[in-house]
């Protein structure tokens, strides 16, 4: 019997040691960018306590249906180029808290990895919660047979965030997960009124960490109110704001991922 991940060409995890640095944002924008490059993308949201993905695509009211091979992912639009799975779709009410200990979380993650009928995808992006615990251990274990492409680590520039992401790098090393690179998010803010750049969360920590750890540095994404607004409203930032400050950074990150995959196949 064909596994539900057999049609998925590349599996990519988005990790961080730290909460609030923008993993779900980067996962979302990466998916949108890849779609604009003509790829079919799925996002598996394994943040069970704080599932952000449904809202970022304005799909928070969607339900999940079953089919013969398992759960049908939620399609974002008619051409089915982006599909999603998240515990957010399984909650009766959006404010319901998922107050589960590790073992129950692990069981659902195993199901999410095995039982979603993704069909054929170019990329499956796995969005994770912060940390190095149950969700991460279970996700990596469940995905191991499918040989993930690797992990993108997201940090903000300041040392306190980088300090946690260093530990996430160790997690990757210990679990044999290849690090595709580090993204330094919320890196600088350009005032829309006067264009002055302020490093609200400092600058450079992500790039330094990449150098120190010998992993690729994928780029700096600045703080961009148009990006935040797009995410709030579940809009396609990549389509709507190509002149925006965050756009080129996100496009470059996507290009590096695509370059990486073409190198791998050749």
């Amino acid at each position: 019997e064909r596994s539900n991940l057999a049609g998925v060409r590349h599996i990519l995890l988005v990790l961080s040691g730290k909460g609030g640095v923008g993993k779900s944002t980067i996962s979302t924008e990466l998916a949108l960018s890849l779609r604009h490059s003509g790829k079919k993308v799925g996002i598996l949201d394994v943040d069970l306590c704080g599932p952000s993905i449904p809202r970022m695509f304005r799909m928070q009211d969607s339900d999940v249906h079953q089919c013969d091979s398992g759960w049908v992912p939620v399609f974002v639009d008619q051409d089915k180029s982006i599909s999603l799975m998240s515990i957010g779709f399984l909650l009766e009410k959006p404010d319901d808290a998922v107050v589960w200990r590790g073992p129950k979380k692990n069981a659902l993650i195993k199901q999410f990895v095995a039982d979603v009928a993704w069909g054929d995808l170019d990329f499956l992006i796995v969005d994770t919660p912060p940390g190095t615990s149950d969700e991460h251990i279970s996700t990596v274990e469940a995905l191991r047979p499918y040989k993930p492409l690797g992990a993108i680590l997201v940090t903000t520039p300041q040392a306190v965030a980088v300090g946690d992401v260093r530990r996430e790098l160790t997690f990757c090393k210990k679990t044999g997960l290849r690090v595709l690179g580090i993204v330094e998010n919320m890196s600088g803010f350009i005032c829309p009124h006067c264009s002055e750049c302020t490093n609200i969360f400092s600058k450079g920590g992500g790039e330094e960490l990449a150098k120190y750890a010998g992993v690729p540095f994928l780029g700096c994404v600045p703080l961009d109110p148009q990006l935040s607004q797009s995410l709030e409203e579940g809009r396609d930032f990549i389509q709507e704001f190509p002149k925006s400050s965050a756009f080129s950074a996100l496009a470059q990150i996507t290009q590096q991922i695509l370059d990486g995959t073409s190198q791998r196949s050749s």
Partner: protein
Amino acid sequence: QVALLDIDICGPSIPKMMGLEGEQVHQSGSGWSPVYVEENLGVMSVGFLLSSPDDAVIWRGPKKNGLIKQFLRDVDWGEIDYLVVDTPPGTSDEHLSVVQYLSAAHIDGAVIITTPQEVSLQDVRKEINFCHKVKLPIIGVVENMSGFICPKCKNESQIFPPTTGGAEKMCENLNVSLLGKVPLDPQIGKSCDKGQSFLSEAPESPATSSYRNIIQRIQEYCDQRHFQEEKII
């Protein structure tokens, strides 16, 4: 006399923020000694038990719970006025365990932190529900990263836009107190990175007065609760 307990086992940030990186925990007859920032501020974190900043704590729930229990049982805090517990994001093992283990000690309540945008509020509503579920009183909500004033032109930008009314609307809807809003100030991150007190380094910052007002409201809440408890006794 204040104790700060960091139960973020995977991402312990407190040692760095307090300028205590590299410190170790000492054992004595009476248990583990907290690491003191000042005479009246003691800190405990898994960060002090790790030998390198690259060390990852890759533990499942039960092992994390075990350490939290030890932190609460074996640390010799002495007589303290306030025990502040910093938690990781989520509504899972750490949160359930700390509430369970402290149940006999009567937790005054929880301060819940959010940023203004809906993506954050969405998760915070779940955290509020968690508190109701486990009967943890809510002291109130703090809206962090609430607006940024450009140092050059002094215009305000909402970097994390409150598209659904921010913490203010949420608190109204859920009948919890909004303790205050803290604006973005680049000095906050800098001070934390250097392990120095932002309140001392930037006394004139609008963020400092926000913090101080919030802290005052928390102290008033705790004093009132204490007073009410004494009345019952």
